[in-house]
């Protein structure tokens, strides 16, 4: 096999070769990081460190990039004048590359946020020359977040070599942001014009800072450039405003989905069965604790799969909360049908018993339910709009639970029985429906769904024995506002409350928003006691 053939079969080798040639052509003056430079970057006072960093990072240097990664990960320490980096468990002397045993005087390098920011920018600037597209993209995105600390020469060099259109466009915007403080007014004018296309809040802040006054004079001396900056700012604001609006809408829907999930169970027990279940919140709490138990079981027996504990916790929390619910229905609630006041008192008592039981079992303190990594972080849609994964998962989960419940109530035999028993108990009994069993299953369904809600809520809030009491008011609010016995109403009320609460929170703050929403609901119920959607037909009159 000839060498050229083997290369032909390995496209990766071609790429490496090409990049190697590129590097050689580009960086004749590429130099290695000296231990003195490393020491100057990692010790001394902040300004001296940053000056040393800028000096070393003025040219692309893969070794420096490596060192900066280590510094930012906290893997560098200073022992006297020796710089040591951590590799696995061993400490390596940067100068010799040999493993050393650190003395007692070894001090880990601490980077304050100012230094960290500069280090990150320097690292990102060096990463602009990385062979991997994703790394270059990440680097340029990061630099766009903070365009003030980048070395102009590096960006211009990267502009010459970059081929990818998306990265190139970002690089040009970044370049413009740097040019904004150039000495030439023409450069600044062109930059201000170009920056109108940017979506970054950092760029907006940068433009704003040019309009500031310092010692009586504008930072930006040319009035022509100032007008252009104002024009560009208006354009950016217009687009950022959309990001904000979308963000508010998303928050509203997310809050609505949480309310809906919490209230769905109550929509069954109260809405369909008419049981005023004050312990509904405690079933949410039980679901959350079931999630915690599942997580602990995974930690003990399947530590490798602990990130999937949440998936196993979904059916588990449903079954646990549902079974406890059915048990309580069988033993207590079935004796109280048709006596709402006594049901209210009895379920209030049950809620206290459940809270105390959990407190005795798990302790009075909050328990920690971890977010699996696939639910941490967020999806970056616009520069000022990140949709957190955990919220998206919960919205999707709510839709699935809602769909499942709707199918169960409207398409299955059990659902038919539940509706029949709700509408006319004696008649359903007459035609042979075993109403006691239907009651038990329906109650189990309602509490099981509350358990599912608890499983989801453990991902965003705290899990404590008292957590349920915080949700019970919201649940009743949603169900009553939506119209008792109406699933559509529950959905509409939950989303409406979520969005209204979010909008008000932006104007009035969290405390006032809550009060305002409560007052609005009271007024609404005064006007329309049957809720948003009223049940029509004979069963209402009875």
């Amino acid at each position, binding site marked *: 096999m000839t060498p050229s053939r083997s290369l032909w079969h390995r496209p990766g080798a071609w790429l490496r070769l090409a990049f190697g040639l590129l590097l050689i052509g580009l960086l004749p003056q590429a130099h290695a990081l000296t231990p003195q430079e490393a020491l100057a970057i990692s010790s001394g006072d902040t300004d001296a460190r940053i000056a040393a960093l800028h000096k070393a990072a003025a040219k692309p240097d893969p070794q420096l990039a490596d060192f900066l990664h280590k510094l930012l990960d906290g893997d560098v320490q200073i022992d006297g004048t020796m710089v040591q980096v951590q590799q696995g468990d061993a400490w390596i002397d940067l100068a010799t590359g040999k493993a050393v045993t650190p003395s007692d005087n070894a001090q880990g390098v601490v980077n304050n*946020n100012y230094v960290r920011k500069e280090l990150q920018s320097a690292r990102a600037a060096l990463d602009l020359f990385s062979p991997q597209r994703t790394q270059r993209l990440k680097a340029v995105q990061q630099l766009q977040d903070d365009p003030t600390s980048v070395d102009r020469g590096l960006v211009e060099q990267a502009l010459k070599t970059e081929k990818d259109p998306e990265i190139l466009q970002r690089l040009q915007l970044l370049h413009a942001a740097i040019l904004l403080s150039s000495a030439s007014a023409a450069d600044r004018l062109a930059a201000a014009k170009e920056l109108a296309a940017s979506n970054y809040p950092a760029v*907006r802040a940068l433009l704003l800072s040019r309009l500031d006054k310092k010692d009586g004079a504008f930072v930006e001396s040319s009035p022509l450039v100032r007008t252009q900056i104002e024009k560009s700012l208006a354009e950016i604001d217009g687009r950022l405003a959309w990001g904000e609006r979308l963000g508010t809408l998303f928050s509203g829907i997310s809050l609505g989905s949480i309310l809906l999930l919490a209230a769905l169970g109550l929509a069954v027990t109260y809405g369909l069965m008419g049981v005023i279940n004050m312990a509904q919140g405690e079933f949410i709490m039980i679901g959350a604790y079931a999630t915690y138990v599942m997580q*602990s079981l995974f930690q003990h027996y399947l530590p490798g799969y602990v990130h999937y504990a949440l998936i196993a916790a979904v059916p588990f929390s449903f079954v646990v909360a549902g079974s406890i619910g059915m048990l309580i229905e069988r033993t207590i609630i079935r004796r109280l049908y048709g006596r709402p006041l006594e049901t209210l008192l009895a379920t209030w008592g049950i809620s206290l018993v459940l809270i105390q039981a959990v407190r005795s079992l798990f302790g*009075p303190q909050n328990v920690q339910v971890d977010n699996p990594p696939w639910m941490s972080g*967020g999806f970056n849609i616009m520069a000022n709009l990140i949709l957190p994964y955990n919220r998206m998962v919960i919205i999707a989960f709510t839709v699935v639970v809602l769909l499942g419940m709707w199918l169960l109530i409207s398409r299955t035999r059990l659902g038919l029985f539940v509706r029949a028993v709700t509408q006319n108990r004696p008649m359903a009994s007459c035609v042979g429906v075993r109403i006691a069993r239907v009651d038990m299953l329906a109650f189990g369904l309602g509490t099981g769904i509350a358990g599912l809600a608890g499983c989801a809520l453990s991902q*965003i*809030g705290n899990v404590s024995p008292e957590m349920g009491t915080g949700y019970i008011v919201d649940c009743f609010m949603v169900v009553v506002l939506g119209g008792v016995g109406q699933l559509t109403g529950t959905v509409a009320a939950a989303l409406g409350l979520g969005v209204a609460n979010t909008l008000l929170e932006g104007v009035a*703050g969290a405390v006032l928003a809550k009060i305002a929403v409560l007052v609005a609901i009271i007024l609404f119920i005064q006007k329309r006691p049957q809720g948003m959607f009223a049940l029509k037909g004979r069963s209402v009159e009875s």
Partner: protein
Amino acid sequence: MDRRTALKTVGGAVAAAAASTLPFPAIAASKAPIKVGILHSLSGTMAISETALKDVDLMTIAEINAAGGVDGHMIEPVVVDPASNWPLFAEKARQLISQDKVAAIFGCWTSVSRKSVLPVLDELNGLLFYPVQFEGQEQNKHVVYTGAAPNQQAIPATEYLMSKDGGGAKRFFLLGTDYVYPRTTNAILRGFLHSKGVKDADIAEVYTPFGFSNYQNIVADIKKFASGGPTCVISTVNGDSNVPFYKELGNQGIKATDIPVVGFSIAEQEIAGMDIKPLVGQLTAWNYFESLKNPRNAKFVKSWQDYVKAKGLKDYPVTDDPMEASYIGIHLWKQAVEKAKSTKTDEVRKALIGQKFAAPDGYTVEVLENQYLSKPVFIGQINDKAQFDVVWKSKGLVPGESWSPYIPKPKNA
């Protein structure tokens, strides 16, 4: 797991019983024990922070007893649980003083709980050692303030954020739980920022209820506010709300290098067990960190870890500032009782002024005339090991100011 949590709940009772029944040196048997009250929430929204204080109190008392007690008298702790319920704090304090006849009370975290205990202390001539940073603006002769006043925490932290090292903040988002401590601290900070020439347009003030958990909108607002210039967040969020708040910060991609967040109620105990990666670089200001390197601190941390292990108490055996302040408080009280040769409030109070104690923070703290302490100030940054790296420290001790110069002093004070 169940056994451990079960142990946790009865831990207080066990320790209390142990302290009074264990065989101690012969001198101890001849003298009557001195009762002290421990008044910390062991359940509810504040339990996340206060439970550890109860445990460190018991540890310190056990240590003092093992070393011969107070002038030969054993200390007998009486543990009560006010359950994060502010009126219950007053009731329990009354019970401690009038029924249990305790010589002093070590307790409270939130200022609202301290304020509700004050009338009881005034009425029954009690003595409270309060171990938590707070808003100042109070000088009650029945309270010894071993935590930080605003000039020992909030003001230096804000100054740091405005400095080049801290990110040169020009805009300030003041976020807090809705009660007396955050509101007063923010009023002081507003006065301080005005004195530095910051305009009201660059200060946002937002409050949330206790136990609040939906920080989505607030974090979005922080981002929006930050697009107007270099911004920092000064958080006086208290209790378990901190967990969802910091989770949301991480999920919405707020990095310390873009928008630094300094939290005054977040210490080693609170961040233990959080997903720490997204929070690296976020700040806090205290008078003590577990990561401080000095022999006294090494001893303090070691004895806490041993205590936790022996009692099977917690998943996260870390020390923090309010724990150190509790430790200091008990020792100062012991020294004062020994000096006064009495446990009577008035005499102990007199003996307390000027008491010095070599604290785990590496400095010798002192009780001032106003019953505040002079303490060092540190600003720490969260690192990836859920500890704090000190990025700034005060030059020597800073005396606690009871009345901030940045807001008017109340007339009746």
